[in-house]
């Protein structure tokens, strides 16, 4: 069976030529990346890469210090690690709770442009400033301790949650919302019955992911005195207690892995 038995088929069929603009675009993107890497080489002191090998003796000695983790104070480390997770939990939940209204207000398919733009810029500001910087600020404001860490995570994540959640809202199917509107429902009811059910799976997934990230972030908040395991981690590094440092790092890695696995299971259940 042939496709044609009357028209003559040429021996070779030429491929249509590549679009010039797309070829050019590829050159510009890859060439630009190469240029940017070259430009950043010296400022980033990438030439020091040889030091990794030239003083390999020192490196080996340094690394071998970590090979014998010292779990003598393990209960103290675990206690601090649990505190770290508790800080992350409160920071995440607060940022979700307050992030939802901001997310709705920064969705262009829900709110008018003169609300969307200012709210988005405010959220940009929350996001742009690192949680460590916020932690330093809150330590000054509310004193040393875990609460400063919670507040730092909360404010930084508020911006992230608002952005991620509003992107989900902007991608919804508008017709079910119209169906709700046609019943005479109020605007808030349209959001609750028409929008939230549609975005719930994505929102849950984003929230769990942010919780994982916050557990990781919270492990360094202690460096500036905002509570958690970061404080003892930083102290043991500065004091050259390699064994203790290794033990703390192992506990951090195990905790982050467990949180990761748990949230994956939760996500599967929710969606």
């Amino acid at each position, binding site marked *: *069976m*042939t*496709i*044609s*038995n*009357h028209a003559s088929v040429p021996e070779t069929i030429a491929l249509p030529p590549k679009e010039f603009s797309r070829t050019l675009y590829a050159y510009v993107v890859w060439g630009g990346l190469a240029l940017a890497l070259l430009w950043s080489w010296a400022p980033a002191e990438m030439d020091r890469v040889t030091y990794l090998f030239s003083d390999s003796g020192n490196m080996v000695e340094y690394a071998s210090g970590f090979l014998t983790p010292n779990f003598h104070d393990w209960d103290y480390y675990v206690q601090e690690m649990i505190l770290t997770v508790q800080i992350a939990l409160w920071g995440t939940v607060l940022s979700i709770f307050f992030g939802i209204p901001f997310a709705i207000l920064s969705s262009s398919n829900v709110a008018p442009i003169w609300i969307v733009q200012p709210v988005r810029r405010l959220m940009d500001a929350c996001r742009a400033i690192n949680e460590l910087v916020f932690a330093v600020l809150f330590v000054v404001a509310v004193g040393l301790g875990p609460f400063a860490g919670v507040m730092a995570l909360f404010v930084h994540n508020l911006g992230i949650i608002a952005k991620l959640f509003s992107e989900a809202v902007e991608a919804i199917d508008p*017709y*079910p919302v*119209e*169906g*709700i*509107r*046609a*019943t*005479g*429902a*109020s605007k*808030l*009811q349209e959001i*609750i*019955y*028409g929008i939230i*059910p*549609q975005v*719930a*799976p994505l929102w849950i997934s984003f929230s769990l992911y942010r919780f994982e990230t916050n557990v990781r972030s919270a492990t360094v908040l202690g460096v500036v005195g905002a509570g958690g395991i970061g404080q003892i981690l930083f102290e043991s590094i500065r004091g050259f207690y390699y064994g203790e440092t290794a033990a703390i790092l192992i506990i951090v890695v195990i905790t982050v892995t467990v949180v990761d696995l748990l949230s994956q299971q939760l996500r599967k259940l929710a969606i």
Partner: protein
Amino acid sequence: MVAVSIDGLTKTFGRKRALNGVSLEIPAGEMVALIGASGSGKSTLIRHIAGLERGDAGCIAIHGREIQSAGRLSGEARDMRRSIGVIFQQFNLVDRLPVITNVLVGFLGQINRLRGTLGFFSRNEKHIAMRALHRVGICEQARQRASTLSGGQQQRAAIARALVQGARLMLADEPIASLDPASARRVMEILAGINKEDGMTVVVSLHQVEYARRYCPRTIAMKDGAVVYDGPSVALDTAFLKELYGEASDELILPDAPVSDQPRERPVVAIGSGAPALATA
């Protein structure tokens, strides 16, 4: 009592004139079909009547109260939507919510706003919602997510929502266009039943004239955004449709409509002359 009265309604989308000076009146209790080829303005007209779209000029009154006039929605539009049930071609249910919640949404416009927002529906309201589901024949599926229902069942759930809403006017925008013939007939029968038993005014836009002839005593035919025929459905025979729509009339007479039961011919697409014919449904 006049259910719908439209006077000189005009709407332009970009350069395209979607509605061109439409004026009509529908007395309460009628069942009216709105027919026309795709792009003739049926859906646009229905969306204007429901107050979901604003016209450029002209006015629309529902049960004697103006819902929009000269491009402005009345301040009572949200309130008036309560008395207007709308069902859509794509059902517009919220997929992830259970059927019963989708139906209870019909109460939102009637009950205390805070209670509705928080989702505290009374036992009596749930009872009414279940009765509506029973009437459209899907009360067993009440707890299932809307997305698990078939197209025909989803459309019936949407009708139940409009029933719960206490609407006096039902607007159906191509309610059967994406349904198989059996489900289509079921939905049309439910709409006709609501019209007869409850005296609800029903305006239904249709693609197929056969359904209009069978279920609706009156038909309004549209072409290029204007009303070209308004009268008894029985007068719409094939010759008259040809006259109204020319070649486009083929689109309006589909072989799967309920009255004609002849075997339907499938369009045949052949690739080359020796290739087997591919039948497309």
